[in-house]
C-alpha cells in the first residue's frame, strides 16, 4: 500500500510533503521516490525539490504559481502510479576504526553486545543508504544498522570531531563533513570529505546513494588524506 503523506505549508514559498514524524525506512524511501519523480518532471512553478529523512520539501516561485495550484498539481502526481526509481550510485569508502581514529569504538561495541572486531566487521558488511544530507553541507545520515545498534547519543559532547569522522547513534552513521561538537560515538575515520567547497562538484554524495565502508589501516587513511583528493580513495562501484 502507498503511504499517504500530509501536505503542509513551510513558509510562504514551500510545501512540506510529510510521510512520517518518526523514522521509518518506508517513509524515507517514499520521500526519495517522490523527490526523484518531481525532479524528473517538475510541476509548474516548482523551483526546488529536496528529499529529507521522512519528507519532501517542494519550493515554488510565488510569481509563477500559487500554493493552491501547486498543491492541486501535486495531488494529481501523488495519485499517479509510482514509477521505478533510478538506479542508485554505489560507493566503497576505505576507513580505519578504533584507536585515536575512533575513541568510542569500545564503548559502542559494549552497548551493542559485540566485540570491537565484530562490530567493525558488521558495519563494513552493511550496505548503508544515504537517508538524507544535513546539519552541515553534504553531511550524510546513513542507515539503517541492525537493531542492536540502537544506542542513544552520549550524555557528554565530544567538543570537536574532524571532517571524515565516522560516528554512530540510533542505528545510524553520521560521516562528519565539517568540524563539529557531537554526542555521537566516534568509531573511525575515512579520507572522504563529504563537502569540498573548492571542488567543481563539492558534494560527494546525494540522498539515495549506497555506501559501504572497507577496513583499511590508519597509515593507509593518513596517506589518502595527505594526497588531498576529497574523494579519499572512494571507489564508485557499478556492480550490483
Amino acid at each position, binding site marked *: 500500500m502507498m503511504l499517504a503523506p500530509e501536505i503542509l505549508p513551510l513558509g*510562504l514559498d514551500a510545501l512540506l510533503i510529510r510521510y512520517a514524524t518518526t523514522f521509518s525506512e518506508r517513509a524515507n524511501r517514499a520521500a526519495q521516490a517522490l523527490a526523484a519523480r518531481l525532479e524528473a518532471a517538475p510541476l509548474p512553478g516548482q*523551483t526546488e*525539490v*529536496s528529499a*529529507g*529523512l521522512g519528507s519532501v520539501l517542494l*519550493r515554488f516561485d510565488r510569481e509563477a504559481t500559487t*500554493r493552491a495550484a501547486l498543491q492541486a498539481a501535486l495531488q494529481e502526481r501523488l495519485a499517479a502510479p509510482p514509477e521505478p526509481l533510478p538506479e542508485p550510485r554505489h560507493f566503497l569508502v576505505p576507513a580505519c576504526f578504533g584507536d585515536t581514529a575512533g575513541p568510542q569504538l569500545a564503548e559502542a561495541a559494549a552497548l551493542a553486545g559485540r566485540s570491537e572486531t565484530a562490530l567493525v566487521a558488521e558495519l563494513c558488511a552493511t550496505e548503508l543508504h544515504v537517508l538524507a544530507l*544535513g546539519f552541515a553541507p553534504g553531511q550524510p545520515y546513513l542507515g539503517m544498522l541492525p537493531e542492536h545498534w540502537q544506542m542513544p547519543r552520549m550524555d557528554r559532547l565530544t567538543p570537536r570531531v574532524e571532517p571524515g569522522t565516522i560516528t554512530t547513534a540510533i542505528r545510524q552513521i553520521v560521516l562528519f563533513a565539517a568540524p563539529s561538537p557531537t554526542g555521537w560515538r566516534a568509531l573511525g575515520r575515512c579520507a572522504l570529505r563529504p563537502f569540498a567547497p573548492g571542488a567543481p562538484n563539492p558534494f560527494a554524495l546525494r540522498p539515495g546513494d549506497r555506501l559501504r565502508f572497507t577496513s583499511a589501516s590508519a597509515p593507509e587513511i593518513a596517506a589518502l588524506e595527505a594526497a588531498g583528493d576529497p574523494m579519499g580513495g572512494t571507489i564508485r562501484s557499478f556492480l550490483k
Partner: protein
Amino acid sequence: MTGFIEVAGIASKITVQDLGRPGFTAMGLAPGGAADRRALWEAAALLDLPAPGAALEMPLAGGRFRLTAASRIALTGAPMRAYCEGRALAWNASHLIPAGALIEIGAAEAGVYGYLSLAGGIATPERLGARATLAAAGLGTVLAAGMRLPFAPDPAAETPSRCLPTPARFSGGTLRVIEGPQTAFFDPQTRARAFANTFAAGPANRQGLPLHHDGAPFQSRSAALLSDFITAGDIQITGAGMPVILLAECQSIGGYPRLGTVIPADLPIAAQARPGTPLRLLPISLEAAESASPPEPAQFAALRRSCTSLIRRPDDIPDLLGYQLISGVVRGDEEDGCGSI
C-alpha cells in the same frame, strides 16, 4: 573599470553576502545569504540596479575602506555613522565615491546589520552560484584588514545620489507568524501563551535569535521528532523550552519542534534586534501573510518608487575634482524626500 575595495581596517566580523544559494537544500546546504535581505533590495533600488549584488554585511560596526576606482555605493540596513574623507555620508542613501577616498563606517546607532553595497557589485568568486559567506563551510569571504576585494564597474556612475526614508525595523515590534508543519505539536494553551507574551531579544548570531521571557518554558507534545526541513523565520523551541527565531544562516534540517514561521516581511526586524529589544509574536492566516509579505520582486518595485534624490550642496562633496561632473549629479533643486545632510 574593475576596481578593488581595499580593507584598511575592520571593527567587526564583516562578510560578503548576497541573496544566498537557493537550490541545495537536498545537499544539506540552506540558502543563507544576507541576514537583512530587505537592506540588499533597498541598496539595489538606491543604485538603480535590476537586482541586488553582493555587499559587505557589517554586524554592529563597519570599518575603513578605499575604492581603487570611483563608484557609487549604497549604505543600508542598521544606520551607522559614515564618512567619506571626513565628511558625513547620509545612511539609506547612495553616494558617488571618488577613487582613493577613505570611507569610514563606525558603530551602528540602532539595529545590528549595516550594508555597504557597490553599484557594480562585489565580484569575489562565486561558489555554487553565489558569493554569500557561510564561514563554517568555507564558502564566501570573511574580511580581514589588508584584503582587496574586486568589484565590477559602476554601470551608471552619473546617476544622481538617492535616498530612502529611514525604515522602522531597528527597534523591535510585532512579528507576524504563520502556522508551520509542527505547529500542531503544541497545545492551544502553549500557543496562546507564546502570542500573549512580550519577549526580549537574547544574544543572537546569523543562525538564530533567542527570545527571552520570564514565564514557564514552552513545551511541545512531541518528545522525539524526526529531523525535518527548516526555513528561515521558523520559531524553534529548544530542549529547554526557549523560542529561537531561525535566521538566514539556519541549517537545512533540524530536530527541535517549531511553533510557526515569522513571515519574510517581518524577519528583518528579528535579524536587526539587539539584546533586550522587545518583540511580540502575532498569529496571522496564510492568506493574510501572502498579501502582507509579497514576493521580493514586488516589494522591490515599491522600494524603487520610494527613492528620492538626495540633495547635495557642492561644498558637501568631499573631492569635487574626483568626480566626472555630469549634469544631474549636483542639481541642487531636488525635492527633499528624506532629509539630506
